[in-house]
């Protein structure tokens, strides 16, 4: 009997309507201490069914510890973890409906590919015929049908990764945890596998939680991203939100590159804010109200692609949003060029422009004096 296709989280976006949607995984005020070291501090997080959630952070951010607590290899020092309504905080890993794909793949070297995949099913005591059928299903899913009898050391890195994925999916877990799944692959393979992973996840509708330090990976894979810093959650949101509307300097700097400018609020109105910046050498006009006070010191972040370079002085906006400087460096990256502009104050701005004209003879070049301008909503005002 054909099942009706599941509604995927990426389409329904349940986090936008928390009143009517129950989260699948609830992490409530979870902390983890190792002796005196606080690895995870008061993290609360709700993840919805069939999401592909990414925990993004650098080393020491606590993301791996949080993942291990979800898997059951560490017990939280404080807080609870609920999966599908059941409290799993104290449950050992072999009793959880959760499976993990390890960073090192952790394939059992003394077992064949088939035996590796079948291992979890054997532990459940499934009848042999069913195990064989399930193993076959999975081999087809990860496109390794002819490799069943091989041992892990006879496989390439990418093949091992697929076996690890198949093994983790064999038991049809409610939750699949992936620890830096693409870290060991080279760039080309990584891109291919990223799309494969998303395809499989959408096909099966399993809730994935992926831990990664690679922001590009997070942006490609995730339905939502949780940025972690020093054991705490810095920001949770959809990729666009994280990128375009970061809530702090950390997040703005962590994802992509940003020009960070310091300034003082000179006008604070409900419909606009004006910021004086000696660094920038001009005022910044922000076209919406911001929760701040006059004379408050804050930061303003703008992405390189949101600014425009020109030789002629632009009109600006209410006498603001125009800076001027000299082109110091140009990095030609083929599709875009990144310009480093030195302002009079010594501050450097990075501005990227698409090379839309092929071999432009009139392109802006080194040591030219240029104007930089931007829209009233192009940057983010950050108070932390």
């Amino acid at each position, binding site marked *: 009997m054909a099942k009706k296709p599941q509604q995927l989280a990426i389409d329904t976006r349940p986090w936008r309507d928390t009143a009517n949607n129950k989260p699948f995984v609830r992490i409530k005020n979870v902390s983890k201490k190792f002796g005196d070291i606080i690895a995870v501090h008061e993290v609360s997080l709700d993840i919805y069914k069939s999401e592909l959630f990414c925990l993004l952070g650098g080393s020491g951010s606590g993301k791996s510890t949080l993942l291990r607590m979800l898997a059951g290899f560490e017990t939280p020092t404080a807080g609870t973890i609920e999966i599908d309504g059941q409290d799993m905080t104290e449950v050992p890993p*072999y009793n959880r409906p959760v499976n993990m794909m390890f960073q090192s793949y952790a394939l059992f*070297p*003394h077992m064949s590919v088939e035996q590796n995949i079948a*291992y979890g099913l054997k532990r459940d005591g499934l009848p042999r015929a069913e195990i064989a059928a399930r193993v076959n299903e999975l081999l087809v899913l990860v496109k390794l049908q002819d490799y069943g009898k091989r041992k892990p050391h006879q496989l390439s890195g990418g093949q091992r990764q697929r076996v690890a994925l198949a093994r983790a999916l*064999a*038991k049809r877990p409610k939750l699949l945890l992936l620890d830096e799944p693409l870290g060991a692959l080279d760039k080309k393979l990584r891109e291919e596998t990223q799309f494969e992973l998303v395809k499989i996840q959408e096909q099966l509708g399993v809730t994935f939680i992926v831990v990664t330090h690679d922001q590009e990976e997070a942006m490609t894979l995730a339905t939502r991203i949780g940025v972690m810093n020093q054991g705490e959650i810095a920001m949770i949101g959809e990729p666009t939100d994280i990128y375009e509307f970061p809530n702090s300097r950390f997040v703005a700097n962590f994802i992509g590159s940003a020009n960070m400018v310091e300034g003082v609020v000179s006008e604070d109105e409900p419909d606009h804010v004006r910021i004086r910046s000696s660094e920038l050498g001009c005022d910044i006009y922000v076209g919406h109200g911001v929760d701040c006070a006059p004379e408050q010191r804050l930061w303003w972040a703008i992405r390189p692609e949101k600014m425009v370079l020109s030789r002629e002085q632009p009109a600006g906006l209410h006498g603001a949003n125009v800076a001027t400087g000299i082109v110091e460096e140009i990095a030609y990256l083929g599709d875009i060029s990144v310009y480093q502009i030195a302002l009079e104050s010594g501050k450097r701005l990075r501005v990227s422009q698409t090379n839309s004209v092929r071999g432009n003879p009139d392109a802006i070049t080194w040591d030219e004096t240029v104007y930089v301008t931007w829209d009233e909503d192009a940057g983010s005002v950050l108070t932390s």
Partner: protein
Amino acid sequence: MRKGWFLPIAAALGFSFLYAPIVSLVIFSFNESSLVTVWSGFSTKWYGELFSDPQLLGAAWLSLQIAALSASIALVLGTLAAIALVRFRRFRGRTLFAGMVSAPLVMPDVITGLSLLLLFVAMEGFLGWPQGRGMLTIVIAHATFCTAYVCVVVQSRLSDFDRSLEEAAMDLGASPVRTFFDITLPIIAPALVSGWLLGFTLSLDDLVIASFVSGPGSSTLPMVIFSKVRLGVSPDVNALASIIIGIVALGVLAATIIQLRSKPRDRQV
């Protein structure tokens, strides 16, 4: 940094020093004359004498049995101790335990032998067991000091072990005990085999401890050899030595070949 000629020559000298006496031993086992160091002709008569000497053969059989038993007991105890030392975080009496496990490695044989004998005598006085001394007491003594060696070997393998394999097994539903037997044990098996072989060799070779704790009628091979050799050179001992050396050399050679062949393919686990 290569030192040119010095190193290879020093190494060659060292190795010849190591092997020259052994080689001469083997050569003279085929010597006609009983003056072991004067060559008078090729003969295998000492090998014949060896095999018709009931005392030697009996002692050899006894030693083999003792070695097998001791090595096996030591394997179990040593592996358990290694697990405790590598896997358990702090526990009360850990330093004492670690000390007890490793002390036999450096304690002089005479002290180990004396202490165990005195224990057995005292136990016999208080508990009536063990009744006299013999194979049982030797096995107990050997198992005790072999445990230390087994533990070292297994410990070193266990501490290198990739824990994520065990975590993967548990993640897939295997309890800790199950994980140990399904995953850990098969993978550390080579270390267990080495440990057993090490224990076997040490037991087979022990003279001092066996001398202390053995009883009438339970003379081990080293004890018989020692009493023969004390009086002077004995060609049938040469023959015995050659046989032992031959077996050991074959064994070590086989082990090295197996190791070398499996190395390039296997990833370090």
